[in-house]
């Protein structure tokens, strides 16, 4: 029992879960009864994409990589989705093409970083400009809408909760499949030590490649959800999402040095970021101070979570009892 509790505390997502619950309570005190249907559907619609892409990004970070092309890929999917739906294409076909485009973006990242071993941050910075550049090229100014049927389904299925939760569920289940498969262990192994993974017979380059492709697939699903919610195309719609996703991962206990973290923690981190905005809006009424206040809050969250995680890692390590203690 006690060791189960310690394992729970040692779970990398634990600190972000505490943060999330605290924010829920703080918000309840500041604005009682805020957690109504309208708030929840709105929250899931507007923060869902960040939650989903953070889980995607955590795959890359855990395997020791870095991906700052989150917003590039999501913007591209957004305009492709809208442009195709303007042409009157069948919905299912649109979704398939979006996923193919997303996979293609991931393959490009993965090839450069995994097989050509180019610095991840530079590669994905360049490809990010490339992807958002294509997006802007296709759609210079915001326009368009998603097919009416899809829009109605998104906003009304199961009282408006169904669609955003379905998207989120796909991502979370996807994460668990990865986590429980052979690939899951290999991601953690490669993230912790590439050399030793190689010596253990793991194809390090392939694991890195796959991490970028899977992450891109997650961003794509996230972008489809986002586009349906906004019902419009805008090549700059996802900008600022990359840094937010990285922040969410760090708050969620994912180490940027690789090998440590949990996609679920990233999701908690992203949700906390969304809830924190509600908190700021409740406290700070002056619109000019809101950015400053949310900046302060984010800084506290990042520093606090990092330090707490470090403390837990030191405090709760289960030192093995040396039974063969006779030294020679």
């Amino acid at each position: 029992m006690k060791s189960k509790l310690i394992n729970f505390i040692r779970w990398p997502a634990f600190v972000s879960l505490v943060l999330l619950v605290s924010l829920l309570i703080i918000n309840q005190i500041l604005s009682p009864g805020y957690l109504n249907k309208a708030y929840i559907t709105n929250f899931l619609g507007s923060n869902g994409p960040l939650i989903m892409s953070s889980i995607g990004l955590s795959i890359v970070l855990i395997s020791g990589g870095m991906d700052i092309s989150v917003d590039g890929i999501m913007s591209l999917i957004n305009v492709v989705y809208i442009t195709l739906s303007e042409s009157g294409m069948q919905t299912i076909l649109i979704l398939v093409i979006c996923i193919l485009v997303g996979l293609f973006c991931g393959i490009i990242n993965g090839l450069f970083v995994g097989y050509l071993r180019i610095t991840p941050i530079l590669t994905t910075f360049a490809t990010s400009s490339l992807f958002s550049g294509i997006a802007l090229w296709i759609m210079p100014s915001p326009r368009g809408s998603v097919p009416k049927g899809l829009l109605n389904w998104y906003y009304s299925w199961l009282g408006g909760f169904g669609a955003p939760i379905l998207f989120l569920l796909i991502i979370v289940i996807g994460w668990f499949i990865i986590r429980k498969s052979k690939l899951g262990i290999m991601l953690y192994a490669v993230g912790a030590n590439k050399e030793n993974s190689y010596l253990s017979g793991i194809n390090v380059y392939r694991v890195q490649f796959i991490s970028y492709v899977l992450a891109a697939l997650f961003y794509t699903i996230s972008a489809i959800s986002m586009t349906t919610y906004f019902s419009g195309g805008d090549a700059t719609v996802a900008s600022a999402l990359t840094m937010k996703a990285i922040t969410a991962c760090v708050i969620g206990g994912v180490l940027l040095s690789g090998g440590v973290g949990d996609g679920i923690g990233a999701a908690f981190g992203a949700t906390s970021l969304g809830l924190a905005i509600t908190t700021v809006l409740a406290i700070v009424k002056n619109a000019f101070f809101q950015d400053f206040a949310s900046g302060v809050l984010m800084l506290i969250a990042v520093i606090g979570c990092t330090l707490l995680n470090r403390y837990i890692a030191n405090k709760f390590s289960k030192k093995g009892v040396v039974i063969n203690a006779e030294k020679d």
Partner: protein
Amino acid sequence: MKLECKNISKRYGSVVALNNADLTIESGEIRGLVGGNGSGKSTLSKILSGAAVLDEGEILIDNFPYKANSPREGKEKGIVMTAQELSLLRNLSVSYNINLCFLDEILGKSRFINKDYAEQRAIELLEMLNIKHILEMNINDISTNEQYLVEFAKALIQKPKILIVDEITSALYKNDVEIVKNVLFKLRDEGIIIIYISHRLNEIFEICDNVTVLRNGNTVGTFDVSNIDENELISYMSGREIKDVLVSEHLDEGSTPVILDTKDVPLNVHNKDTSVRLRVREKEFVGIAGLEGQGQKDFLRSLFAIDKPITLEYKGEVVTLNGPRDAVKNKFAFISGDREVEGTFKERSIAENAVAVSDLVLNSKIQEVDDLLKNSGVKYSNAKDLIISLSGGNQQKVVISRWTATKPNIILADDPTKGIDIQARRDVHETMRNMLESGSSVIMISSDDEELVETSKMMPMSRVVVFYEGTIVATLYGEDISLENISATSSGKY
């Protein structure tokens, strides 16, 4: 089964690691593999296990050519090696680490990892090695000897046909060694070829049937352990005839005052806490000999406060150095043999490299850079050229001139001539002698015993200390500083 390695050669850049080495082993044998620093035993085992690819030569298994381009290929063909530096992943549990090499084996019907099955497979081995209690722990949470046993279990679970055990026992306790020994005997009787690498010669005699000696990348010979004694074995390893260690009574320890007393410097070598104390006199040359990984590097680096602060007695006063900056200000110098990483600033000019410490740390401008470089024997055309335009030996001389410019009292040199040509080597030794004569004391590690013998003869006052498993096991003066004595004491004979 029969393993034959014929004329294996392997070079790393200009360094020849293996030069026409041979090795033939048949099933039912534990073969010891011994040799001094740079003898090529690690390289040979890396080639066999697939972690390195040979340049020339061929390997036959049962008369079929064998080649592994990666550790994975090696494992699939049944050759498995335990790594001296441990190949474990610190963020994974013990059972996943043990199963890591063939994860397909622990997939359930659903293609998901079956944690229970992974633990079940691991526990059999852990029980055999008497460390069952660590099953659910992470590698970070278990002690070093247990980590080495996990590394061993990780190799065993792959059911190797050829098992290479590289220095596994150094970190183990006595009863662990007994367990490992019995497992190896059992595997041998099952017909598995075992290659056993260790610097502990008594273990070679205890565990192995035959022993192959490597020297400078070449095979010296293979001997039945019952027909050879320790002295003969060391003789083959060093290429000199070794009888017993002859240390004449030596009273002349020099008359200059002691400038540095390191006090007890704590070391942890192979899971054992030890400490080493060294008193260095003014103008004295102290050579440090020993097989690689006996704690000498950690000792030297501690003196420069590289990883943590250190308190020493220096010039008669107690001084605390909080980091290399403090060390430099107290006139310490540190010359690393790892030029690429710790020596040169690659994208900077020769002149900038030479004045880096004086300029940036001591804030004293060096006017005559050319004189400084020439005194160290650097051959260059223009000091404004990038340092990487020079040969390796000349680069190292620039790094050394950087330190001579600071007029240090204590020069700490960590294998400073590693991988540079013979002429550059001589220039480095020459510079060191000049420094000694102008008042510095030198503490120098060398992985090349011959170099220590040569340089000691050059210096006005010299001494060689020999490290073995984290302690100084011998101190040699004058005529006693010989290859024979260094080789014998490095192998733990003292």
